[in-house]
């Protein structure tokens, strides 16, 4: 918690700012009993002593540089708990990544994590999320790419070697297709499994019954 702004611990969720939280990308999961309708209301700036309860706009020299180099490609720069995040257009993802990895772009040489989040009600249902780390700046950056069903994301394996397995896992769990990945196949589930379990429309009790019956000789794994 030490990289937080050292605000006095006064506000907690015990007194939530009345019913205002918006779902990050404005969609509620269908399976959630507590899902709330999106309420993209105006953003009142959080009072200074309280810890922020929602992301705020982010600005920094790096962002300016990025926006200069890739106009149109960068949107929604937000910062929350000192964690900046930007949304990158799919088409210029590779360029942005190459730039960020280079010395002038902050040398984000370590791809910490790559994952995805599913918002089935949105037009482009997947957020593919990259967490970058720069040893030089001791700083993390979150990239998001919005992808629709059936669209292909350029693979960043060429930029960060780590992405190989991480992208395979995203493909396995979400069915996000990557373009230019050397070996895009399932990693955690069996190769002939049907369905992508981490999608929101894949119920927790569901499984590939055909696969289970054929391979495990039992009626159901549940």
């Amino acid at each position: 918690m030490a990289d937080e702004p050292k605000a006095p611990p006064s506000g907690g969720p015990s007194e939530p700012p009345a019913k205002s939280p918006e779902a990050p990308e404005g969609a509620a999961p269908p399976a959630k009993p507590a899902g709330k309708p999106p309420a993209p209301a105006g953003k009142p700036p959080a009072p200074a002593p309280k810890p922020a309860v929602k992301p705020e706009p982010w600005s920094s020299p790096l962002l300016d540089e990025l926006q200069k180099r890739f106009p149109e490609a960068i949107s929604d720069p937000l910062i929350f708990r000192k964690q900046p995040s930007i949304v990158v257009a799919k088409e210029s993802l590779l360029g942005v990544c190459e730039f960020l990895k280079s010395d002038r772009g902050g040398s984000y040489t370590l791809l910490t994590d790559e994952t995805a989040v599913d918002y089935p009600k949105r037009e482009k249902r997947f957020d593919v999320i990259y967490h970058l780390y720069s040893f030089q700046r001791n700083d993390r950056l979150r990239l998001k790419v919005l992808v629709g069903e059936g669209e292909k994301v350029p693979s960043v394996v060429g930029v960060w070697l780590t992405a190989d397995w991480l992208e395979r896992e995203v493909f396995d769990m979400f069915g996000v297709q990557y373009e230019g990945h050397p070996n895009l196949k399932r990693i955690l589930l069996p190769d002939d499994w049907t369905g992508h379990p981490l999608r929101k429309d894949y119920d927790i009790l569901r499984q590939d019954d055909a696969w289970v019956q054929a391979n495990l000789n039992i009626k159901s794994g549940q």
Partner: protein
Amino acid sequence: MPEATYLDANELVINMGPQHPATHGVLRVKLRLDGERVLGTECIIGYLHRGVEKIAENRTYVQFAPYVDRMDYVAAVTNGMGYCEAVEKLMGVELPPRAQYTRMILAELQRIASHLLWLGTHALDIGAMTPVFYTFREREEILKIFENYCGARLTTHAFRIGGLQYDLYDGFEKDATKFCDYLLPKIDEYEELLSTNRIWMNRTKKVGVLSGKDAIALGVTGPVLRGSGVKWDIRKVQPYEAYDKVEFEIPTGQNGDTYDRYIVRIQEMRQSVRIIRQSVERLAPGPIFGKVGKVIKPPAAEVYHSIEAPKGELGYFVVSDGSTHPYRVRVRPPSFVNLEALDIMSRGHLVADIVAIIGTLDIVLGEVDR
């Protein structure tokens, strides 16, 4: 990738695992061999996949906490700590110092326990049978402290979001210091058995070499990265809890081989002892819970929090939609990413080295597969 050497030689394809004594669980490695020389490896994982991330979406924040213990089951305390901190970060909760130091002591004990288990099994893989029993004996002492503190030995569920469920028991400070005094001579004994032993050095030096640049490109973290000479430890560079208030050093290696990673982990145990000693001194009576309500209901936002788990960077990416259930929890498992390096590290080595390299990566399949 090296080619087969003999005229018209057929590659020998061997399945190492999922039932194999040296693959630390249910890892299956498909080896392509030329004689005993490895031409390439392919890891086949997922035998232990339980869908932890899916489970998270169907539990409340509080209910999910016991499940994270079961990922890296030899370091349950750090797993739980990472998860609790991630949710606390999401909610903006600050912990009281007593809770912070307690967490640090237990996390460092867990780091020692994890490294001890690693050392024992790694030595066993390389053929030294005895260290595993010594290290398990020391680990037992740590588990006894855990059992006294929270009632469980392995999957501890020691912390709750916002603080600690249990205050320290009477005599905890004494137990912790006593353990520190007990452990240091034992570490010397392991070194006596292994560090200068010529067979051990032959088996580990120049095996599985990973340069610092490769290590970063492959995304490995933790002792594997530090063994390659990159002085990077999240406890130092982005301190959490009260790690910025204690003194310790980051041991690094130079050559990035299996021996260096062994030395790094041995030194890390010593540094952990230092941290425990300082933390015990600073334990003062006080509250053990930060300001959280009865119902954990973080604001709608997303946060990534990572800690230095014994195996590397353990990250939690929590997406909240403002309800009591997480919208998505992504675990960034250190073992999974480190295991990816196996292929590059093992090419051109012999079968026996594969075992040493799998051992030196310190993977736990519960975490790789989740």
